[in-house]
């Protein structure tokens, strides 16, 4: 077992000491505690400590993330991320479906902002419009139809005595595992403290671990970080990226004209380029998506109509007999 563990580079690459010292990890833990305290479950809610833990979690997460160059960018990311995550937490913690929907809409606003920060302006706007404007409103309509008060006894409890802690714990472990493996692979998490260890591991398992470009980039970064002993400054990344993109495009789509111009996602003409990519390279998928939408529309209508027929056919109260049993 130990032999296997030491032989597995993924495992070996997780910087345990660093993770324990990382604010990110503690942020996840604090967030889990706050969720345990706040979301509806078998135990009574403790709002004040829960909110305290939530705030602590947000702050720790923010501290654990990498810094941007400029304060503005840093601030905007922080604010939007906090908005997204915080309101998402509120959405799952609310005992009223209406509140949940509204908090989710807020979270979507934050998501849209984050999209915009990443040069995905169209998506940012589309998310807000489609989700917050259409889907969430539909949800609200349904809530109003079905549950005008917006809350019920089953909104205050979960489905089993141990359900909440188990689920929250499992989700926290899942998140921790993902971040704990992706972070070191990207060379972000624990690069400082485990530079030597990573370098050793790389030397040891060199023949097995020469796979993905991000891996190799991380390794090179880790090595350079180990040399420099300071925070890694990657100078070669853009060129690497460019090479990769060019190479990938050359392999996959040699026939498209003016490729380089279209394929650049940064810069001006974002919408135009997105449109041309969407309706040229992904045309078939767009058509399929449209068909899917149509089918969903028809299907939804069919379901509702059929249900109405069934209800009409049944004698009064027959549909509710299940309720008694």
């Amino acid at each position: 077992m130990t032999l296997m563990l030491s032989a597995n580079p993924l495992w070996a690459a997780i910087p345990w000491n660093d993770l324990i010292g990382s604010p990110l990890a503690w942020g996840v833990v604090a967030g889990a505690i706050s969720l345990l305290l706040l979301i509806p479950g078998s135990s009574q809610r403790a709002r004040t400590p829960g909110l305290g833990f939530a705030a602590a979690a947000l702050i720790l997460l923010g501290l654990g993330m990498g810094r941007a160059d400029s304060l503005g960018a840093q601030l905007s990311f922080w604010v939007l991320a906090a908005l997204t995550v915080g309101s998402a937490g509120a959405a799952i913690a609310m005992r009223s479906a209406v509140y949940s929907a509204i908090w989710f809409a807020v979270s979507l606003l934050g998501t849209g902002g984050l999209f915009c920060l990443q040069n995905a302006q169209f998506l940012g706007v589309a998310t807000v419009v489609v989700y917050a404007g259409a889907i969430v409103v539909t949800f609200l309509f349904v809530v109003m139809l079905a549950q005008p008060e917006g809350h019920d006894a089953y909104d205050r409890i979960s489905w089993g005595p141990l359900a909440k802690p188990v689920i929250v714990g499992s989700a926290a472990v899942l998140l921790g595992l993902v971040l704990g493996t992706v972070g070191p692979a990207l060379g972000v998490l624990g690069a400082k403290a485990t530079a030597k260890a990573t370098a050793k591991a790389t030397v040891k398992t060199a023949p097995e671990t020469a796979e993905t470009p991000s891996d190799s980039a991380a390794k090179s970064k880790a090595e350079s970080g180990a040399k420099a002993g300071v925070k890694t400054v990657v100078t070669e990344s853009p060129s690497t990226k460019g090479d990769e993109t060019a190479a990938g495009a050359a392999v996959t789509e040699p026939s498209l004209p003016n490729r380089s111009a279209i394929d650049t996602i940064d810069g001006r003409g974002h919408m135009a380029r997105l449109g041309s990519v969407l309706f040229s390279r992904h045309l078939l998928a767009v058509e399929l998506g449209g068909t899917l939408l149509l089918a969903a529309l028809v299907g939804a209508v069919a379901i509702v109509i059929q249900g109405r027929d069934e209800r009409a056919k049944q004698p009064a109260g027959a549909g509710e007999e299940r309720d008694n049993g």
Partner: protein
Amino acid sequence: MDSKLHLLMVLVPGLPLAAAVLTALFGPRQLKAASHWPVILALAGSFLASLALLGEVKQRSAETGGQGGYEHVLALWTWVDLPEALRLDPANAKLSGGSALRDFRIDVTLRADPLTSTMLSMVTFISTLVAIFAAGYMKGERGYWRFFTYIALFVFSMTMLVSVSNFALLFVFWEAVGVCSYLLIGFWYPKPDAAAAGMKAFLVNRVGDFGFALALFLIWTTYGTLDFHDRATAASFSGEAAAPSAESTGDSPSDRATGLMGVVSPARIKANAFWGGGVGLAICLLLMLGACGKSAQFPLHVWLPDAMEGPTPVSALIHAATMVTAGVYMVTRCTPLFSASPEAQATVAVVGGATALLAGLIALTQHDLKRVLAYSTVSQLGYMFLGLGTGSLLGIVAGMFHLFTHAFFKALLFLGSGSVMHAMGHVIDMRRFSGLRHLMPITHVTFMIGCLALAGVPPLSGFWSKDAIVASLHEQAHHWQETSADGKTSPAKHASEESATIPKANAPTLLSAAALARLYQALYYLALVVAFMTAFYTFRAFYLTFYGPERVPAEAGSHAHESPWSMCGPLAILAVLAAGIGGYLEWTHGFAHFVSLAPSLAGGPVLGTEKPGEFHLTVAATSTLVALGGILLASYLYLGSKREVQWLSSKANLDELSSWMDVERVARWRNKPWIAGIHANAKTVGLGWLTLMLGNLLLFAALLLTAPMALGHYVSPYRLSYRKFYWDEIYMATVVWPLQTLGLLLAWIDRWIVDGAVNLCGRLPTQLGSLMRSLQMGLVPFYGLAMLLGTLILIAAKLLWAGS
């Protein structure tokens, strides 16, 4: 010419088979109470055919008879053919003729020779009469058609048994008659006794059949063939169908050199190529074991009396006249094999003598009329084996002759007892009825004729055949005395003189001629004693049934009258034949001359000093006197007040001994005046406890001393005879109970360990499934949680174990 013979050979077994099929198919629905007609007609046809066959064979054997005997073989089809299945060792091959490589080939062959045709006419005749009798006896029984189907099937099997010309087929039909016997004994299967008796007969026969099967294996590996007859060449067989008949009379040995010699064929007898020594003895003893099973010889005799649970016609047909004689037939057929091994012949004689004596002793005290007859049958079969065991032509022919006559008078006696039983409402205990001679005059007269024949009173059949056996024993004793007096120390030498060319046969034997002389002398006296007992118990049963005050059991009801003509007719016919046929055949010498033309008897060492058919006045007179003595004793004891019987049986029962066992009587000593006086006096001086204690001690000692004497009560002569020498109990303790215990143990293992494992394999998935079932709780979030946990496990596995 041959085609007529062939037609008859096929008709004899074919008609009963057709009747069996017909009755089985149409009995239950169409024929119903008329089910006996096809069977009776077919059996009668079969009898006529066998008579015609007998005449044909008689004529042909007279034409061609002489050295080597007469046989005619009809091959119907090939049943098994495995080419080159056996490689004999060269010495064997030289002994057997033909090549060393032998094909395992069984042709379904019928044969016609004097022995077979005699048996055939006897079997079909008796079975015809029994079928007619049964039509009256079984009237109104449940399963009427079933009974006649079985009867027809049995006759087919029996005729095939004596017709086939191959050991393997002989074994097949040997089993077939066993099956029919089982079915017919258990005909009233709702009766537990009947079902148990059928099973007992079948299982005891298995022991004998096992020996028979081993004998067949030995014959195959030593002789390289299982055919009785010679097979000229393989090619001539596979040609046209009519070709394979082989008239084998006086052929020169050189013709035979190329073909295969049969086991008991004329060519082999002429060449005297038989195995002696250990192997020959083993073959003969195993064959004898088979014969013991089928013919109820000691120690396998226990099944036949129980077989009387079957319907009485069955007892008459199968268990007295025909099937039980299959062993005698088989030993006769194998006479050349037995001749090569004097020890085997002595064994046959000793077994026959022991059986005759034992069964005779048991028959003295039985109360059940049919059981007396059954033990008498066992005893007479022992007589036949005594005759066969002499090894001389005289003795063997006498055995066959006794078989022949015995079939008539024993069938007569059984049918007579069936008639009595029919009238008495199925009561057969002789203590419950008596004096039936006025009620059933025909049965009385015919039964008396049968009894006289069985007892061996001069002009009747039984006298001639029994006398022939006794005479042959006498002769054989003389023969060995002369042999030993001539200085020939070993009978083997005597035998091997005629066959110096055979290397292995007739190895030195264990018995000297003098010993054999003493043995046969003893058997001669034993035969006389048995003859006396036979006469006694036969007439005991006869007097108990038909004489004395007229008593009828309550079960008889309105039945207590003479039986219908369908039953009395066969009785009358059988009575005439039982009275006359022995004398007729004896005076014309027909039987002995004819049967001795069978190939097995027509050559080789069996042609001894004595020609059959000669009459020994002294022996005849002795045995007649003995028989009359038995009858007179029975008359004295059972015709009067029977006071002597009471006295005799109480003496024989050692009743005084049993009274010693009586605790009350011993305890009464205490009340004798002088003992009581002593006790009273002792009491006055305060020693009452002492006398009481002493008295009790003495009582205890007395009981301890008398206990072994009381045991004598259980082994008293009368009790031994009445309880059949405890053979059933001995078998129960030594064979049945251990096997039952083992069976129960194995059943337990099978049920709880083997089945348990199987059931576990079945239950385990069910249990696992019901465990998984509790996961199907219908909660969607729970399913989602399961997915989440599964994902976690996959990721953990990827991280922990999967290499990169």
